[in-house]
């Protein structure tokens, strides 16, 4: 087996100067004066095979970058919809080893593959090992909802070696010095939470994310995307007017989830709903500017 952590002569891999995949995506979208549409779904939901189809559906229906969630038993940043979907995925045998297939699926479909994971899952898998496998599968970057830059030494080192983007979060009450810390450590883009709280759909989006995006840019971030609470084309258009990207999660997950929120819908119906919702949101994003 070749050890990809070393050069052919056997030396540890140095810093990868591979350009950021998400940066390239934003540059490309800039030409059309469009924000990015970033869609989230948990891997393995409702089961591994259907989730691969769902990821492809997203890319086929206008999603530029896919945020592939890794289901976790204790997701403190997630609201009821994503909690339920994660639980269903775990009950159906989701395993981190399979997530790289999802990464390949997104890459093959022409999307930019991102993974969103609570830190313990990556830490337990092995940070360097994860970075290596993620890179080999064609991954672009990792979103870490419960890892702040101050604790990210190992991840910063591994992502530097493997040319992966580091996407940290900021929130409306983040102080300027925190925005600076995050902007400095980030690679690819910064994820701005639209409001204080956990993931989930909302009827209205306040103006606070616009101010946060502005403050984060001032703190040094080159790209800022907004997530949490965006669920309609109208909201997507509103957010896309000022953000580099619009991130949608629960509203997409919702399409695959039955009314009770405890069980997934029939596969065909779910994927149909998902395609329609992605189309709707993509139109919103396209009309943002």
């Amino acid at each position: 087996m070749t050890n990809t952590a070393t050069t052919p002569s056997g030396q540890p891999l140095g810093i990868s100067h591979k350009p950021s995949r998400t940066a390239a995506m934003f540059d490309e979208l800039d030409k059309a004066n469009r924000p990015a549409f970033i869609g989230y779904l948990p891997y393995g939901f409702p089961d591994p095979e259907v989730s691969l189809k769902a990821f492809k559906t997203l890319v086929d229906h206008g999603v530029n970058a896919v945020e592939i969630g890794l289901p976790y038993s204790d997701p403190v940043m997630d609201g009821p919809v994503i909690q339920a979907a994660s639980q269903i995925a775990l009950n159906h045998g989701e395993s981190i080893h399979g997530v790289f297939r999802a990464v390949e699926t997104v890459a093959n479909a022409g999307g930019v593959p991102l993974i969103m994971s609570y830190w313990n899952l990556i830490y337990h898998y092995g940070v360097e090992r994860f970075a290596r496998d993620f890179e080999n599968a064609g991954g672009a970057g990792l979103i870490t909802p419960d890892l702040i830059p101050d604790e990210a030494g190992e991840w910063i080192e591994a992502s530097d070696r493997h040319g992966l983007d580091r996407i940290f979060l900021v929130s409306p009450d983040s102080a300027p010095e925190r925005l600076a810390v995050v902007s400095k450590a980030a690679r690819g883009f910064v994820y701005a939470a639209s409001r204080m709280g956990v993931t989930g759909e909302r009827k209205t989006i306040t103006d606070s994310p616009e101010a946060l995006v502005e403050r984060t840019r001032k703190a040094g971030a080159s790209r800022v995307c907004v997530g949490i609470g965006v669920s309609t084309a109208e909201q997507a258009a509103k957010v896309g007017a000022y953000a580099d990207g619009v991130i949608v999660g629960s509203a997409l997950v919702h399409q695959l989830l039955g009314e009770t929120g405890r069980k997934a819908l029939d596969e065909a119906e779910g994927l149909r709903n998902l395609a329609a919702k992605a189309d709707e949101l993509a139109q919103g994003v396209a009309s943002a500017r």
Partner: protein
Amino acid sequence: MSVLDELVAGAVEDAAAREKVTPLEELKEAVVAAPAPIDAMAWLRKADGIPVIAEIKRASPSKGHLSDIPDPAALAREYERGGASAISVLTEGRRFLGSLDDFDKVREAVHIPVLRKDFIVTDYQVWEARAHGADLVLLIVAALDDATLKRLLDLAHDLGMTVLVETHTREEIGRARAAGARVIGINARNLKDLRVDVNKYAELAADLPDDVVKVAESGVFGAVEVEDYGRAGADAVLVGEGVATADDHELAVERLVKAGKRVKASETTPLSTHHGPYWGQFGGRYVPEALITALDELERVYSEAKADPEFTKELVTLNQRYVGRPSPLTEAPRFAERIAEKVGITPRVFLKREDLNHTGAHKINNALGQALLVKRMGKTRVIAETGAGQHGVATATVCAMLGLKCRIYMGQIDARRQALNVARMRMLGAEVVEVTLGDKILKDAINEALRDWVTNVKDTHYLLGTVAGPHPFPEMVRDFQKVIGEEAKQQLRDWYGIDHPDAVCACVGGGSNAIGVMNAFLDDERVNLYGYEAGGNGPESGKHAIRFAPGTGQLGMFQGAKSYLLETDEGQTLDTYSISAGLDYASVGPEHAWLKDIGRVNYSWATDEEAMNAFRDLSQTEGIIPAIESSHAVAGAYKAAADLKAKGYEHPVMIINISGRGDKDMATAGKWFGYLTDEQSKALEVTGAHGDTVA
């Protein structure tokens, strides 16, 4: 010819060519004129950090070309700004593409020590280094015989320079020491996969005395290696590629320097006043960025309050007049006899009576302290999690007293086995939310509390009940609980005339009562400390909450801190089980994890059965009904006594922390011991009060 031989031969040839242009005598004159060398020893060892020697490196024989470095002076200045303690300049020209010209430019540019790194085997090269202003030179043991090594080392020392002596094996370290090396570079690369092998480093460095500065010389790339080497005892690190090829050189060095500071700060003593965020490698703040503002505020307000005599006075007064502190230290002679019968030594046993506090447990100590901070922060709403209900009751109590809005999250299973405590909390005006997500136990209650906090952080304080979670909770909760041990120490002297205990026993869930009773004794090596986890049906059963026994907990991040954690192969949190809701937790406070790793506290466990037997023993020998949680400490006292016996104690003085009273557990105990009629038992089962009827 080996690579090293080839490099040395080339270096000698090049030096000879230079000597033709500049004879030795001329160099010696230049040395006299050169500015005095900086004493690099002082730069290579720091109490509060791990000095970084950052290298200007264009290429190496093994990796080929690395970086162009058109302007070495600019790069050196970036290293210096990033916090480097010294700059290493490769002056070998053939394979490393360095030069003395690079060296001169760097020397001009920075004010920190500069190391000439070359294949130095002649006096001429040493004089040359000093003439160019070097503060440090490198000598490679493998390239020198003993006599030459000693001669060059002495010459460099005579010229006022510090010598970094590079070694690869124990034998070379021995030769370096014999020659009089004061700074030894250890190359601990694992030659199989070329990764840093910290074990090899530790093995090589093991016999080096303290007055030798130890530099980890190979394979340092980023923060991970600095941390690994630092924990293995390296004084300084030398790093080349990791900084030379970084996009932002200053930031790359800064990250290494920070990692080194963090390692040093995480291992400070005395243990009893150690500060977070890190306890050895444990602790930290593994939380969403959205909580950082609140955690920063809490840390700031707490440190202000600690320094404010008014705050301390209010806390002490309320502790006395409201909580009923000090809690007594009760001698338990009849229980001591039980230990004597079972173990065969005759201890004196003292019980620290946290069960006599208002609300019946130690939890109020912390709840009161934090509630006073809530007032100080001007927040109006308090949320808390609870397992056994003791922390929930304590929180609801202090909120009622101080007029704060209060919501308690409790897993549904716990809420049912502690139905009366739920009623107590509601009676006290708190809203109790039963959590039906996940496993419906303590950890799920904490998840919900964290979600609430992320959402309502502006007006809400999360009153965490134990020494776990993100910084500053482990430190702050310790400080509010350490009164337990301080009192016990004083009472043992004043009431019983005993200078110090030989042993302290406590149960460990998250670990707040254990830290509370142990903190005053952590730095007193005469006191043996014992912590007992919830053994459930035993470690092999898979139904337990033992985090420290081999094959149980693994390193992981959980609910804000790095610690030991019960988790699956996938890193998902494992279900835990214990008859006591309060110990039923998948992780453990980071300070305990550290105390385990450094061997200060002996951790073991008591099974459900052992705990329930101890529950009965103490009730029937002393008339004191302990909480089932505390019964694990009582059960542990038998095990501690056996250990003390093995250590040669005959009449040890033992303190057991009775963290809470057992009234709340009577439904469970009644069923366990068969004191309830079938009818009564059934009636309790309907409400789930035994805790085993809810799936």
